[in-house]
């Protein structure tokens, strides 16, 4: 079918069925707004958990040419690993290379990494204590009697109880489950709205088939309509989320005075997810629903 005809047919039936068009768009709007909110909150909770977990770690930074006279040798690094691994207090030792550290930083705070010409970050160990309360003991044992050779700095973790981390983990999981539930239920809700609108037009579909319209000739405009509803609904949802972010978020975070290094996913990602989901549900929803009415 020619594109122009497809669009003109879609727009005329959108205009002719204003109430169902509005209903479908509103459904998409509400579903996508909630989805965006949950993704934002969920990713914030996840980041909060990560940050707390981070605080439980003892970090051992090795020398680089910049910080000490010369970089730590592999032998020195191995010696520290062995010392840590033999300790009863230590649960897990993770090696974070210079490159990995830079990668991480690029993900978390891209604006800081932008202008770097070389990688100034050191190799490091992240040491997880067997018990959150023992963090100080782990770092102390490493410092005594003196810092091992090749180590530039040992950073203590804060004494945060494991419970905070657990709470954050549960919170993340709860948001993940809620997001999935929301995704499924809003898909069903949108599909149902589309079903109603198609059901109210089944006579029209019957007539189209009787004058010899192919399935795709009937289906095309319906799918494009669903897609348009999806786009419009998602875009409005994104605008509303943006407003909420700009207006409401500063007020809340000022009061909480939490550190600003806890970040939800970037708004662009959330917007992209919303848009893709909204469009898919709109177009595929109508395409699938109409199948039942095509067998005239």
């Amino acid at each position, binding site marked *: *079918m*020619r594109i122009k*005809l497809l669009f003109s047919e879609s727009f005329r*039936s959108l205009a*002719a069925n204003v109430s169902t068009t509005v209903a479908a768009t509103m459904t998409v709007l509400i579903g996508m707004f909630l989805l965006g909110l949950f993704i934002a909150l969920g990713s914030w909770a996840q980041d909060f958990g990560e940050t707390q977990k981070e605080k439980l770690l003892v970090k051992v930074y090795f020398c680089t040419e910049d910080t000490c006279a010369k970089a730590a040798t592999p032998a020195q690094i191995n010696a520290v690993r062995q010392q840590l691994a033999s300790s009863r207090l230590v649960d897990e030792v993770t090696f974070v290379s210079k490159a990995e550290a830079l990668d991480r930083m690029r993900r978390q705070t891209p604006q800081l990494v932008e202008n770097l010409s070389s990688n100034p970050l050191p190799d490091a160990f992240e040491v997880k204590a067997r018990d959150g309360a023992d963090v100080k003991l782990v770092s102390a044992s490493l410092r005594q009697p003196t810092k091992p050779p090749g180590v530039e700095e040992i950073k203590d973790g804060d004494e945060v109880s494991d419970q905070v981390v657990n709470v954050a983990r549960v919170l993340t999981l709860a948001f993940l489950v809620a997001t999935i539930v929301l995704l499924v239920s809003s898909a069903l809700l949108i599909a149902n709205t589309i079903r109603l609108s198609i059901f109210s037009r089944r*006579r*029209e579909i*019957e*007539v*189209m*088939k*009787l*004058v*010899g*319209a*192919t*399935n795709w*000739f009937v289906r095309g405009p319906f799918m494009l309509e669903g897609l348009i509803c999806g786009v419009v609904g998602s875009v409005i949802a994104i605008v509303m989320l943006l407003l909420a972010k700009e207006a409401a978020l500063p007020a809340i975070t000022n009061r909480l005075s939490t550190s600003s290094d806890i970040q939800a996913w970037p708004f662009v990602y959330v917007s992209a997810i919303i848009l893709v989901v909204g469009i898919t549900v709109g177009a595929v929803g109508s395409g699938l629903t109409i199948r039942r009415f095509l067998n*005239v």
Partner: protein
Amino acid sequence: MQESDVHTQVAPSDASTGANGVAGNGGDPLFESVEQPIDPSSGTMIVFERVTKIYEPNVSALNDVSFAIDKGEFVFVVGASGSGKSTMIRLLLKELEPTSGRVVVGGRDLTRLKRSRVPLLRRNVGCVFQDFKLLPNRTAGGNIAYALKVQGESKASIRRNVPEVLSLVGLSDKTGSLPEELSGGEQQRVSIARAVVNHPPLLICDEPTGNLDPDTSVGIMQLLYRINRAGTTILMVTHDREMVDKMRKRVIALEDGRLARDERRGGYTSE
């Protein structure tokens, strides 16, 4: 062709039944009963070959029905409700598959026709229904244009064909009217115009006058008659006894799914 062609024909029989509302022609019959002038040698349009249709679980709608209709014929199908008339039409449009037997339309065996080809079949078979089946949010012209758009006709062709067919059915001034603004008879004319706009060789009418008053029905029948004279085969299911008796065309009567009667120039009931 002028409408007066039909009026002025003089036929011997049935003058007594009268035709109210036909302007100035008193007791004239509406339709000539001479055989039509178009060449009848061009073969068959519809063949039903021992067609049986059984709905689940075992309600039999058509039972071993066989007949053939030639190109250019005008055929009435009569019978009580539930005698299988609707099933026959749905078989002709391949909305249903026969349980056994063959349905051939225009030389094509429908039982072997692929589903993807069904839209092509429907474009070659015009349909007129008792309830008009017009798209409610399109104008008279828009409804007709839609049938052409579906086939990928060009804008130019649509602009040319729609006024032409509207004038054929006598509704040139109603192009921009929505179905709800038209009378029943006018809606049926639009629906007929839509059915014939792409010149299908076969026109199937399912009680086209069922919802119309007698005077309006006469107008519709004249229109169908003219279309038939122009060469289109017409199969018309009807309950309109008066009309069938007056027209003296071929009559196929169904009774409980069986072919009860097939008369060349029959009446609504057998004499």
